[in-house]
């Protein structure tokens, strides 16, 4: 109990509350701007939070991403442009509602059920994480090796349409992670005698490059395109919400649970949760023929789902140090920078910090109601910020932020190189999320692999000798089988599925 009291004390501090309020506004803005994603918001926040202590730093990230995922729904309904990829699944449906004159109902539903979904996701996080941590405390290198493998495999299985290119991206990320001092023997690898490379590939400038600069390069081509707003005035938002709740409460629950689960699976985040939930809603609906014509049912389920996914993603991140999505991948990088190794020991040594994360999550979701309401009211002015001003400003922000991470031009060089690499890979249908996961998990994977190899003297059977390790190992093999089946099936269909990047 003392830890919970400490956590409250940590959060209800004027500075922390100010950081939360500012990052809420930042998140709403970034989320509402088409082309700027929640992941990008996180990557841009890191240089700003770099000098803060862990609680305000994490508070900023949690709040900004929570707001951004909701705010993405606003331009989806108003301009038919999803503000973040997480709203893409129901953009057409929302826009169709707006055209029918139901913009208020749509935005009201999005706001209220984003909050509800978010809170249900947090409830799962609060209930599930400590239980799993208790289990994880006994894990040895074998379990961690299999967990890391499982995380990476999930990322490829769920997050990409083409497993071959997913694996390629993953191996590239792991290989890039090898640059620097090797974690087992301390030998400098692939450094070409360069001092900067000896310290390894700094994670944050890399993320800023892959997620922000490559996006700016794509955005620069379409800088003159703007959406058309159907309706400029917004009326009463919460009228009709009660009726929707009575009719579709099952959808809210199902969306939230599925969203949390998908969020918790490594590599799949809010965007995939929304797609799956939208498909589920249609599949189980009594009136599937209405989907696509401006029907609220699918919106209810998927808007609950994508916000629930945010909380879900923190479960494996906090318990195992394995990110549930790209946002928590950045969070894990931040935790390492702050000298806190994410994993079950944090629950024992710094429980007040875990509780603080829980409280911030609840607070952020509750704050979303008034702030989201204000954002919808001010949406016309918010969406009028011209892209041609925004792009250069964000670019300068990326440059300064990357510089601040290394205090040298090395950060900017990394950002530029990975911006171009990220763009090049996506241009060739190679997804970038596995590369980032590989980069984050590389050290854990190599360390647990090398330790296990040395312990078992090279015998693979030892990897299955402990009960949990054995189960995890079998789960890995099952996913391998599923991936091979998927590849073979794609192959039979002759032709590669071109998968839209997530």
């Amino acid at each position, binding site marked *: 109990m003392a830890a919970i009291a400490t956590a409250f004390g940590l959060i209800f501090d004027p500075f922390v509350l100010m950081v939360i309020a500012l990052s809420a506004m930042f998140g709403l803005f970034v989320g509402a701007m088409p082309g700027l994603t929640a992941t990008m918001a996180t990557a841009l926040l890191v240089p700003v939070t770099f000098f803060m202590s862990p609680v305000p730093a994490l508070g900023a990230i949690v709040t900004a991403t929570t707001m951004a995922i909701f705010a993405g729904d606003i331009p989806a309904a108003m301009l038919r442009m999803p503000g973040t990829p997480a709203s893409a699944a129901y953009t057409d449906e929302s826009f169709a509602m707006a055209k029918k004159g139901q913009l208020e109902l749509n935005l009201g539903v999005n706001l209220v059920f984003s909050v509800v979904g978010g809170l249900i996701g947090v409830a799962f996080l609060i209930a599930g994480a400590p239980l799993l941590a208790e289990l994880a405390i006994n894990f040895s290198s074998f379990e961690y090796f299999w967990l890391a493998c499982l995380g990476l495999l999930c990322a490829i299985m769920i997050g990409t349409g083409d497993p071959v290119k997913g694996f390629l991206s993953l191996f590239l990320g792991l*290989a890039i992670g090898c640059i620097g001092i090797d974690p087992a023997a301390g*030998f400098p690898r692939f450094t070409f005698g360069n001092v900067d490379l000896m310290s390894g590939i700094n994670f944050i400038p890399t993320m800023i490059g892959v997620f922000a600069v490559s996006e700016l390069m794509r955005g620069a081509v379409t800088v*003159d395109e703007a959406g058309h707003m159907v309706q400029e005035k917004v009326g009463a938002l919460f009228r009709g919400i009660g009726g929707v709740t009575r009719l579709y409460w099952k959808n809210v629950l199902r969306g939230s649970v599925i969203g949390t689960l998908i969020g918790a699976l490594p590599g799949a985040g809010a965007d995939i949760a929304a797609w799956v939930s939208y498909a589920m809603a249609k599949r189980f609906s009594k009136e599937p023929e209405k989907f696509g014509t401006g029907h609220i049912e699918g919106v209810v389920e998927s808007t609950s789902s994508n916000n629930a996914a945010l909380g879900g993603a923190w479960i494996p991140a906090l318990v195992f140090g394995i990110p549930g999505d790209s946002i928590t991948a950045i969070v894990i990088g931040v935790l390492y920078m702050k000298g806190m190794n994410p994993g079950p020991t944090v629950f024992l040594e710094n429980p007040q910090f875990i509780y603080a994360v829980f409280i911030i999550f609840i607070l952020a979701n509750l704050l979303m109601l008034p702030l989201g309401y204000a954002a919808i009211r001010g949406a016309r002015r918010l969406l009028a910020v011209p892209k041609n001003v925004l792009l250069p400003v964000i*670019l300068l922000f990326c440059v300064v932020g990357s510089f601040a991470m290394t205090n040298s031009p090395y950060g900017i*060089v990394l950002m530029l190189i990975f911006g171009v690499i990220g763009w*090049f890979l996506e241009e*060739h249908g190679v997804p970038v999320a596995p590369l980032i996961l590989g980069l984050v998990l590389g050290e854990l994977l190599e360390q647990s692999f090398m330790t296990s190899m040395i312990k078992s003297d090279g015998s693979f059977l030892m990897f299955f000798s402990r009960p949990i390790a054995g189960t995890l190992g079998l789960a890995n093999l099952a996913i391998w089988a599923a991936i091979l089946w998927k590849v073979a099936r794609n192959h039979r269909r002759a032709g590669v599925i071109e998968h839209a990047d997530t």
Partner: protein
Amino acid sequence: MRLSDNWLALIFIALAAVMIGMTTTFPAFPGQKYGPALFPRILGTGIIVCALLIAYRARQRRSEGAVEPALAFDPVFADRTRLVSFLSIPLSVLAYLLLVDRLGFIPTAFLLLLGLMLWFGVPRLRALAVAVAMTGLMQWFFGSLMRVPLPRGLFMQLVQGG
């Protein structure tokens, strides 16, 4: 810009081969079977296998009559203005890197913002105002508040007479 799958595969095979080649110079530690070379070698092999699969699929598509040019350009880039817009992002970062030590952060950041905004068609007065305000904001937030050692360069020397 899109390379054909064959060229893509070739690039990655070459990269992985170089990587594996470099691991042969890594030391082995006496008494330990598994050294720093093991993990990169596994990864290199993984990259090569993926690349071969990509090339194999391309070959299958060709045998079914599909034609893939070695290098294809997005039709968007046929428009010269859009091509320059696209290149302006990485090139302005490069220019920033080359100039910032000599000029200092304030003038370089200002020029980057102003140049890009004018190119993207922002009205002149607004571009000027945003560039001044944003440069100031970044210098204040990162330079003063966060104590990031932003390059001072010629500009600050002139301002401070040092």
